């Protein structure tokens, strides 16, 4: 109770009545942060900021948007043409989703590479997977709101996946649609959920940060801090670094927003939804491509859906699949190679997801992998994706870890 006394003036007055000063003070000033964090540790903050920007732009866009099949597309064009800075808000929101995923994917790969799911961080990690799932749901429904032709057929194809579930599949799909096809009821509920879920996401992100501050940040060595000599204060050291990184990241983001806003979008989505004409080539947004590739790699409908869902859910099992006590990949030669293969598999699956299954696989028009079909390449790298998780429990049996420093301070001061 005497805690309030350490703050002077208004802060002290408020703290006595509402304990919000001390947690904020703790978060920024007394959160011991490992001295050795590298640049990879900035993407969480960037993702958080982007989430804020998405909610903000989304809020004002929602004030101009009209969730009805008759007016949705028109209202988006009205935003683009007539609303003051509407084009900017829309392009910020549309590309913000992409950059949110870029930040989060890098954040996830960083977590895997440095074993950030270990050392009482299971809940922190699972909350992260929940965040990813929520983001995917939100992004998917947001894309549908444009009510362009790719929106419409994207929703049709993805919701039809639920039809693969035995017995209840068809009923479930009809329930999701609120009708016998994707139509006005579908658009309306997607709008409501696209508006609501970001606030759920915000709450889960809050828990994610809470869990982080309970356990503390992991670091590139994967060795816990043993005392003050291993740490520095979050503020000003990491606030400053994050500020710089946020500046750099947002510069790239704005570069795309202002000079190539439609680069990551599909041209066909500038055509209004047309239930009579399916686009020749249905492609989801780029951030879904690896999962879409996994879906198509399995020749069975139900199997594909299970594989796609499993590809995300299996991430949540990582803390239990990885049985090595060592966190950082730099001390684990086999794991290190596996992570690199895993990352490459994800990127190649991204290319696979964008191409027609029967065509030969290409990267920017260049045939790689000896002219194998997109389907074959997809299956190989789907195997690689799941192989990572399947082999993980057995790695410690073969792996001889590299020599580790005893503490963070020793690693830094020893070289300094």
């Amino acid at each position: 109770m005497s805690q309030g006394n350490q703050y002077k003036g208004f802060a002290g007055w408020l703290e006595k009545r509402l304990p919000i000063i001390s947690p904020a003070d703790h978060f920024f000033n007394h959160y011991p942060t490992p001295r050795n964090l590298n640049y990879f540790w900035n993407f969480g903050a960037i993702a958080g900021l982007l989430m804020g920007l998405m909610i903000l732009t989304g809020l004002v866009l929602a004030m101009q948007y009209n969730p009805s099949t008759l007016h949705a597309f028109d209202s988006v064009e009205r935003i683009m043409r007539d609303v003051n800075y509407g084009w900017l808000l829309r392009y910020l929101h549309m590309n913000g989703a992409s950059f949110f995923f870029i930040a989060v994917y890098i954040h996830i790969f960083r977590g895997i590479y440095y074993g950030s799911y270990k050392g009482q961080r299971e809940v922190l990690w699972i909350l992260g997977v929940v965040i990813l799932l929520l983001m995917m749901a939100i992004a998917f429904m947001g894309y549908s709101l444009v009510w362009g032709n790719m929106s419409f057929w994207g929703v049709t194809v993805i919701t039809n996946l639920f039809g693969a579930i035995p017995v209840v599949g068809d009923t479930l799909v009809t329930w999701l649609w609120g009708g016998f096809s994707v139509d006005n009821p579908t658009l309306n509920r997607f709008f409501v959920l696209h508006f609501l879920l970001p606030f759920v996401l915000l709450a889960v992100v809050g828990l994610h940060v809470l869990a982080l501050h309970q356990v503390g940040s992991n670091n590139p060595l994967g060795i816990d801090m043993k005392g003050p000599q291993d740490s520095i204060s979050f503020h000003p050291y990491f606030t400053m670094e994050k500020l710089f990184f946020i500046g750099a990241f947002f510069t790239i983001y704005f570069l795309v927003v202002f000079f190539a806003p439609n680069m990551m979008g599909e041209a066909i989505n500038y055509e209004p939804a047309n239930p009579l004409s399916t686009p020749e080539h249905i492609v989801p947004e780029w951030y879904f491509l690896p999962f879409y590739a996994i879906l198509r790699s399995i020749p069975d409908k139900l199997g594909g859906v299970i594989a796609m869902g499993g590809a995300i859910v299996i991430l949540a099992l990582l803390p239990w699949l990885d049985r090595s006590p060592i966190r950082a990949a730099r001390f684990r030669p086999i794991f290190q190679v596996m992570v690199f293969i895993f990352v490459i598999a994800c990127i190649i699956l991204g290319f696979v997801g964008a191409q027609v299954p029967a065509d030969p696989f290409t990267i920017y028009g260049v045939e790689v992998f000896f002219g194998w079909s997109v389907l074959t390449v997809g299956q190989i790298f789907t195997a690689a994706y799941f192989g990572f998780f399947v082999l993980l429990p057995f790695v410690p049996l073969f792996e001889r870890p590299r020599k580790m420093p005893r503490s963070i301070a020793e690693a830094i001061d020893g070289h300094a």
Partner: protein
Amino acid sequence: MRLMKIIPAALLGLTLATGASTSALASGEGVELKHQHWHFQGFFGQYDKAAALRGFQIFEEVCSACHAAKYFRFRDLEALGLSKDQVKAIAANHEVDAEPNEEGLTHDDNGERLKRTALQSDVFPAPFPNEKAAASIHGKAPPDLSLLAKSREGGADYIYSLLTSYIDADHLSEEQQAKAGDLYYNAAFPGNVIAMGPPLSDESVEYVDGTEATLDQHAKDVAEFLMWVAEPNLDNRKRLGWAVLLFMIAFTIMAYLAYRRVHARVHNEPANGPWPLH
């Protein structure tokens, strides 16, 4: 440590590349695009307003006979440098559906739609009352042109190529002739068989500004106009973009310097956090 700096950049690049690759993909089969240099390309590119106005003249005199552009309003022309009065005069040449009259009627005794003179705030009138009416005359409804430059792969290049890539029957192989049937053969159209006959030729339109009226010029101008109709805020976007970009670069440099300065004292200032942590 250097590796640590390169990897994020590389990852970012790759993720962006994956994104870009999806959009680079869908251009259909058998399509030959003729890439042109456009005024609005690149970081500094802005619309060539004179060309867009010539394009509007073509749209008004030729395209709009069959195609609608439902997001294009007369008042938008002010952005191309026309005065309010000029826009008003242009609008006055067109008629739009009248609002229900005193008796609540929208059609006269002969069943004709009641019309009124268009105002600046009106959408450029569509040639057909609805898609079915358009389809009944042309076999297939002519697409709305207001977003065509954004909804077709290749954008302005595609529109230019489409208008200049008709091959007349004499120059077609028998196989191509069979493929085209009663329709037209176009090297830039996905699938090559198009229902629209060649809409433009040399001297289709006599330009108000005296520019030489060649098919090539017509096609370029109309593509410039349609790009502008599809993305009217491009000029503003790039102008604001430069201001934002310079601001962000300045901020990033400042934050970088501050960050370097702050990190110079990392070694002599351990955290005053509670120990042990848990």
